[in-house]
């Protein structure tokens, strides 16, 4: 006989409002239903009633972790509609910001995962590293969360001294390659807790529309930085890590490997940073048009559709965040697992409910 267990919207196992109702037989999950929207802010609606300059600041608030990605994607959409060319140096600075943000996001997630696995010491070590990324972001932008770096046609602030960024990149790469990856791939506690748990097959990942590390851990070889290069990604070398087992362990490994690749990208971009302007001047209007822009955020593909009519206010701003694409696949992941595995499965998704609810 089956029974239902509601978890959320406010629950000790979930630090953001979200509800999952599990249908169980004994300890095993045989079905689930998800509910989101508890944080609905109507950001798309608001963005269609503010001018494009105001909307840059607004859209940076879609997410508290990958905030830069959203203002950047919005600006890139308007630049595409207006045929506005971003100076090379501006593109390189955007790339550095995007990869530092990926490091920040992946390290935050790795710390949370370490704690959920029950590995408190690792959690502390990872958060120490994450703090150094926040310091590097602050050294560039003056801010630790909402960086206000993007403007239409480029960036607001230059990277005047890259010493701090290089030090952080080197330190993270050393710890990740020397400690984190060997530990995550060989430690028996981690393997016992994560291997074979929360499997999402490749075909399920495609049908559910999973993106980013979740898709790549299920054997879907996709990464917009490589497949549709933007900013400076076409000029640097990096590997897209892909795993095929589709379980929690695969998601852990993919993100750990991606941390190293981000460090490589940052180093290369800093090495080849061109001189010149960082933006294309003051731009407050774009002509009539519409465009889609997709970029590879830390959690996967971000999709923006923008439509303009030549005024300073956009006609339509559609934001599809990676968590919005990934969270529904939890329904497939939790099947045939035990209730005790559900918090870990959800954490391995690296969900952001702020992004999802917008």
């Amino acid at each position, binding site marked *: 006989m089956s029974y239902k267990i509601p978890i959320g919207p406010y629950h000790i196992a979930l630090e953001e409002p979200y509800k999952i109702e599990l249908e169980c037989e004994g300890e095993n999950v045989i079905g689930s239903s998800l509910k*989101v*929207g508890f944080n*609905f802010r*109507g950001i*798309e*609606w608001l963005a*269609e009633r503010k001018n494009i300059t105001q909307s840059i600041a607004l859209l940076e608030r879609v997410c508290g972790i990958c905030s830069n990605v959203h203002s950047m994607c919005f600006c890139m959409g308007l630049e*595409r509609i207006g045929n506005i060319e971003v100076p090379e140096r501006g593109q390189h600075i955007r790339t550095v910001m995007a990869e530092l943000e990926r490091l920040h996001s992946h390290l935050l997630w790795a710390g949370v995962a370490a704690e959920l696995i029950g590995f408190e010491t690792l959690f502390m070590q990872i958060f120490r590293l994450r703090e150094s990324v926040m310091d590097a972001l602050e050294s560039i932008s003056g801010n630790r969360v909402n960086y206000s770096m993007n403007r239409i046609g480029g960036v607001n602030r230059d990277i005047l001294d890259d010493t701090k960024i290089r030090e952080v990149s080197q330190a993270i790469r050393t710890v990740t390659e020397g400690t984190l990856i060997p530990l995550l791939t060989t430690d028996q506690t981690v393997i016992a807790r994560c291997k074979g748990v929360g499997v999402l097959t490749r*075909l399920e990942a*495609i*049908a*559910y*529309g*999973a*993106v980013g590390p979740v*898709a790549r851990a299920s054997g*879907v070889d*996709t990464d*917009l930085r*490589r*497949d*549709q290069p933007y900013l400076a990604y076409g000029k640097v070398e990096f590997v897209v890590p892909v795993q095929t087992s589709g379980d929690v362990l695969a998601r852990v490994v993919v993100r750990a490997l991606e941390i190293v690749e981000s460090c490589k990208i940052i180093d290369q971009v800093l090495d080849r940073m061109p001189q010149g302007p960082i933006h294309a001047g003051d731009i407050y209007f774009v002509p009539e048009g519409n*465009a*889609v*822009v*997709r970029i590879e955020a830390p959690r996967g*593909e971000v*999709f923006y*559709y923008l*439509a303009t*009519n030549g005024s300073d206010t956009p*006609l*339509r701003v*559609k934001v*599809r965040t990676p968590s*919005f*694409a990934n*969270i*529904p*696949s939890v*329904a497939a992941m939790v099947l045939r697992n035990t209730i005790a595995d559900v918090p870990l499965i959800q954490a391995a998704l690296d969900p952001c409910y702020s992004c999802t*609810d917008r």
Partner: protein
Amino acid sequence: MRAEDTRLQIGGTWIERADGWWLTVPAASVQEIAHTLLKAEARFVTMVAQSEPNHVLKLSWHWDMEGTLLSVVSFLDEGIAVPSIVDTYPGADWAERETRDYYAVTFEGRKDTPTLMLRDDDKPGRFLRTSGDSL
């Protein structure tokens, strides 16, 4: 190459843009297109609704294939039902429910379309422009 073959298989006049390939179709053919795209292992990205003048709604469905964006567009009068693709792509569930929340679109072929972002008893169509909120 697979994306090109799939476009040929679907047929119609695809237009290449900086952001991918676009095809305008009647909404009734979206289900069949979704079937073809799933067979080709295209990933469903999202759907977008946009209010046009004279109570016309522009709906677009977007897929990714090897990094290439394939977008299918339909124009329809507000209030006209469109076929659901959830049976083919379960990942389209939230996109359809959100589109109903914001633009009051009815999706045919679903058992039900509960609210996603709005409260259970909220009236759908929150993003539709009113006379005091013109385009």
